[in-house]
């Protein structure tokens, strides 16, 4: 057996640059891997190679596995609506999304700019009203109520003495 010629054969085109050799080595490596490379230029060449291979070779078992998986996914229970029903859902969902968006915007705007003609009650004022109101022990005889009333009275004094508003 004769040793391979180290020199570049002019019949194969102009002598390759180091950059081209590196690119060719990357392609060779990519062809040996099952996952397509990220680099778009390399990916295109790998795709051409795989197209040639897929065209020339009969379907393999892995094709069957892929098809089975996809078919199962496509026919999963959530997809089992009849065609007209699914078509209706597909047609209506943009309107549903639009309606939801309008609702969200409406609520946001409504909150941001309350109607001045109908002043809404202030939460802090309600709290103040509660705090200023006389303490009314529920059942004076119940020890738990007495403790609660004592604590509430103490808290009210502190709150009012600090000038809450």
């Amino acid at each position, binding site marked *: *057996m*004769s040793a*391979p*010629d*180290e020199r*570049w*054969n002019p*019949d*194969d*085109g102009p002598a*390759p640059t180091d950059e*081209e*050799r590196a*690119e*060719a*080595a990357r*392609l*060779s490596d990519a062809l040996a891997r*099952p*996952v*397509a490379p990220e680099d778009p230029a390399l*990916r*295109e*060449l*790998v*795709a*051409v*190679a*795989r*197209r*040639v*291979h*897929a*065209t*020339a*070779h*009969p*379907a393999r078992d892995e*094709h*069957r596995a*892929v*098809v089975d*998986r*996809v*078919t199962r*996914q*496509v*026919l999963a229970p959530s*997809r*089992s609506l*009849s*065609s*007209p029903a*699914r*078509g209706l859902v*597909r047609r209506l969902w943009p309107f549903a999304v639009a309606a939801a968006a309008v609702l969200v915007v409406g609520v946001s705007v409504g909150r941001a700019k309350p109607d001045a003609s109908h002043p809404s009650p202030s939460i802090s004022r309600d709290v103040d009203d509660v705090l200023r109101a006389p303490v009314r022990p529920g059942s004076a005889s119940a020890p738990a109520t007495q403790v609660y009333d004592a604590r509430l009275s103490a808290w009210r004094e502190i709150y009012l003495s600090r000038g809450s508003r």
Partner: protein
Amino acid sequence: MVLTAPAAEEKALVEAAQAGDVEAIRMLLDRVSRPLYAAVILPRIGIAADAEDILRETLLRAIDRLHTFHWTGAGFFPWLRQIAIHQVIDHVRRVQRRTRLEERFERQAADVMPLHHAGAEEALIDQQERALSLKTMSVAMDALNDRYRTAITLRLLEERSREECAEALGVTLGNFDVILHRALAALRKAYGVR
């Protein structure tokens, strides 16, 4: 027109599927999905993950549009094949702007496939689709110079190792890699630019 038994069976399946019978849909898709993937989509796309996505989209679209299918005697496969090729075209469009490859696929989608017939076996459909793809590839390969064609034939069609290919061409491994790289770049132009 009198239908053959397989054609009558396929027609009955289609009618049941159109009535919403999920089991009938499953049986229909089972019959045709493998040649659809292995002989129609993968040879046009090359990248297995992309081909799988296209198969999924094709089957979903087919289910969505099942009610639009009208039995013409050619069977279910040519209709599904057209959907698949349009999905392939959409994919090519997303990857790049309009290309010769896309134009070629559009012609193939528009082609009436006289070879297919209702009730055709999976193996027959596969064989016919593969013959079409082989013909296209053969025309592209003929445009290459002899050394490039040999490199592709040995490595990809005959699945020989790099060492065997390099030895057959009388070059080093590194030089063989360069030849194969150039050969695939040349074939990309002739076979269709993605």
